């Protein structure tokens, strides 16, 4: 059996959804509560890392493949760049908050900031997961003496 024991798998199955949800809430509420794209993104990546640890790398890669992680990573970063560029196009200043700021402390407020948080959340979540996948691929090359 790949992965860890049934106890770990059962617990992991129960908590992974909550971790993802918590991560998403930290990203989405980033502009009105402590946290933001980076912190929430770390939570999201941790959910996938937990799948990798509890169920094996193969299962985790089935849920989020290397290609998908790399693509989300790039798309997250590119979205942030585009938000910055749109600021420059609409108002002449890079990263200018060009969307209506709305009522302070409401979920839909603060203009481009929540959008930037989501872009960063996707980028950080995907890239941290991709880094851990990459780290798990590489192993130490045994010397001839050790092989003997």
């Amino acid at each position, binding site marked *: 059996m790949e992965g860890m024991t049934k106890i770990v798998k059962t617990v992991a199955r129960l908590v992974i959804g909550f971790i993802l949800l918590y991560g998403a809430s930290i990203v989405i509420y980033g502009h009105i509560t402590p946290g933001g794209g980076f912190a929430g993104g770390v939570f999201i990546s941790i959910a996938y890392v937990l799948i990798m640890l509890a169920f094996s790398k193969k299962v985790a890669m089935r849920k989020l493949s290397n290609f998908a992680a790399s*693509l989300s990573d*790039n798309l997250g970063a*590119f979205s942030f*760049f585009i938000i910055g*560029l749109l600021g420059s196009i609409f*108002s002449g*200043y*890079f990263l200018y908050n060009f969307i209506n700021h709305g009522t302070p402390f409401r979920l839909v407020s603060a203009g481009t900031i929540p959008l930037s948080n989501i872009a960063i959340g996707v980028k950080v979540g995907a890239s941290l997961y991709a880094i851990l996948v990459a780290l798990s691929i590489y192993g130490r090359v045994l010397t001839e003496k050790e092989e003997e």
Partner: protein
Amino acid sequence: MENLALGTIAAPLGSAILILIVTKWWKRFADIWATVVGGFTLVASILLIGSEPIVYRMGGWAPPWGICLVLDPLSELMLLVINLLGFFVTVYSLSYMEWYTNKPKFFALFLLMMAGMNGVVLTGDMFNLFVFLEIASLASYGLVGFGVEAEELEASFKYLILGSIASTLILFGVAIIYSVTGSVNMADISVFLKGTGNNAAVLFAAVLFLAGFATKAALVPFHAWLPDAHPSAPAPVSAMLSGVLVKALGVYAMARVFYNVIPVDPIFLKVIMVLGVISMLVGGLLAIGQWDIKRMLAYSTISQIGYIFLGLSLGTALGLVGAIFHLLNHSTYKGLLFLCSGSIEKATGSRDMREFGGLSKRMPVTSIATSIGALSISGIPPFAGFWSKLIIIIACFRAGEIVPGIIAVGVAFITISYYVKLQKYTLFGKLPDKLAKVKESPFAMSSAMIILAVLCLALGLGYPLLNSSILSPAANSLLDTTGWGYITNVLGF
């Protein structure tokens, strides 16, 4: 104009990510787009020369509250240096990087490094300087280890450790300056320090900056990473590292901080002078004994960076013009020499000069380009290197610094000696049988080398024009006798 200045950072930054996305489906996109972006940043930096000082407010926030980009004559010159070599190295890489497996990732990292360097020379904010410096450094760590062979990874790791220590020192320096002045805006810090003077905390921060930037610039004794990192990297990366990275992250940042941010202190200029002279001498002497062609060029970089710092440390207009001119020249001929070494390595499969000889018969373009680069860096008239060294040496004597001036003359002869050695063992003599079938480099590589070789001559002959249009304004923006020029540009008073 404001948008052009922003474009020199935004275009390579966005393109680095765009290349990674599009090349998942279309591999050739990396070649096309990197060349287009390289061309755009080069044209933008040429168009920006001679423009009035520009202050670009990021996010619309006015300085000192927000991050601002400041384009003054020194930044204009540095932008030109970075993007000029950057474009030709990109063209050269189109063919050279076929040797490696993942060209799109190379161009993504390369453009990220370009964005970081352009950011360093444009930013008017100390913390933002650190951020761009890290972007450029992190990309360069990846590029040094791009071949993923044991030697390259070791060099990259060594570079990573020493580079990170340097970055940490710089960050500590920024933190101390912030705690003292309550600002990270360069002009605002300068205003504050003009009022209070340099207290002990500021002097300590200055020492941290000195050590941090000197490591980035590979001044002796902070140079240990360079002789490993530069030869191990692919030739285009070596050209960028030696040609511009050490200058943007080390020389420019040090000049900006010690001339425009922290009030000039004669003690620091003296320290920079001593380090510069030692680098000149040690780099030159160590280069003589090298047989690895790229390692020799790497030690030569340490020596030539010493010249630049010697000019900077004099604190006179002539010294600064000499230093800035040498910086511009060194980027072209050292970039050229590294590209030539890459051609030779690709054709022969070796970097050991003892295995070469008579390559001028088989590789005429590379040989002529190597000779021009070597003559220029050796200081043979009428090539560019002669004039910049002459100006630095005259500036030394006029400033009353006789000993450094004499050492500078002596090191010029040392430089000639190891470049004669390079030419003798590589280009002339008998062609070994095993090299009888080597071929000249493809068009993309040759054309980049030819243009850079022509520039080595053109920069020398065009000195009077360059001096009035770029060099003197750049030197004046550093050597502002009232000390308020930079501040007025940024803060508007």
